[in-house]
């Protein structure tokens, strides 16, 4: 079902803490609840369930503090785990999402590397959900070709006249 695609999001970040501690921040529910999530959300501790091992899982709920009826359920099925070094899995996002957003799943890989002076380098790769990636790279290429043309056009238009627009109300 999951086709092999190149990752879409690649983030590298250095943290001023030893690797074991950064790994713990991702794999211990008490720790994750302290820092993860969109602003304005909380992670109820009693809805967190972690079983971190290959074939295990991490599950939690993100509750919108201002609108508590908006509850997002995150289920990560862990496919590959190396203690202190690697977390890889598929994140399933469901529940009451913002309007216009369908439940989706995204493949996620997090690597923990030692850096000098007891620091840790985090490397995160995240893959677009299948339904968004669907038109594949060819679709993206066409889209960006179109974007190029639009931009060239827009510059030419902007150069020789100022658009005046009236919207019927």
């Amino acid at each position: 079902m999951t086709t092999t695609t190149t990752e879409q999001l690649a983030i590298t970040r250095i943290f001023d803490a030893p690797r074991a501690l950064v790994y713990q921040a991702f794999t211990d529910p008490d720790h994750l609840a302290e820092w993860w999530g969109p602003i304005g959300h909380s992670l109820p501790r009693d809805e967190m369930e972690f079983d971190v091992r290959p074939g295990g899982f991490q599950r939690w709920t993100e509750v919108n503090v201002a609108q508590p009826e908006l509850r997002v359920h995150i289920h990560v099925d862990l496919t590959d785990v190396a203690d202190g070094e690697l977390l890889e899995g598929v994140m399933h996002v469901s529940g009451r999402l913002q309007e216009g957003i369908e439940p989706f799943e995204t493949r996620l890989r997090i690597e923990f590397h030692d850096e000098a002076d007891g620091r840790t380098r985090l490397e995160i790769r995240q893959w677009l959900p299948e339904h968004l990636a669907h038109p594949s790279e060819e679709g993206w290429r066409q889209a960006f070709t179109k974007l190029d043309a639009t931009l060239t056009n827009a510059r030419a238009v902007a150069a020789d006249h100022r658009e005046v627009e009236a919207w019927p109300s």
Partner: protein
Amino acid sequence: MLSVVPERSSEDLDLLFGALADATRRGIVERLAVGEATVTELAAPFSISLPAISRHLKVLERAALITRSQKGRWRHARLSPTSLAAAATWLSRYEQLWTESFGRLDDHLARLTSEQPTPQTQTEKGRP
């Protein structure tokens, strides 16, 4: 630090992410994900003027996130091309989520390292 894979000039991506860096414009894109709409319909959820919405639409159009067409008296806006806009919105949201969370993770780790001065760093257990 962050990269989006399709081989495209960073200038184009700047336009794309610039267009999505604004909450109102993200709201417009999310509304258009449901279906096309007139400027009046798009303005409804926001407490800003029609000309202001119109300016946001121009930014989105320049980033090729939307197209606009004339239908009788009305101009309709729609996502274009759908996959690109939806994917860009999704990426922008996750980029933001990680960035925001990392700030809090920094703070959390700083608290932990000040609480437990050195014990962990010397004995790194579990390393072969």
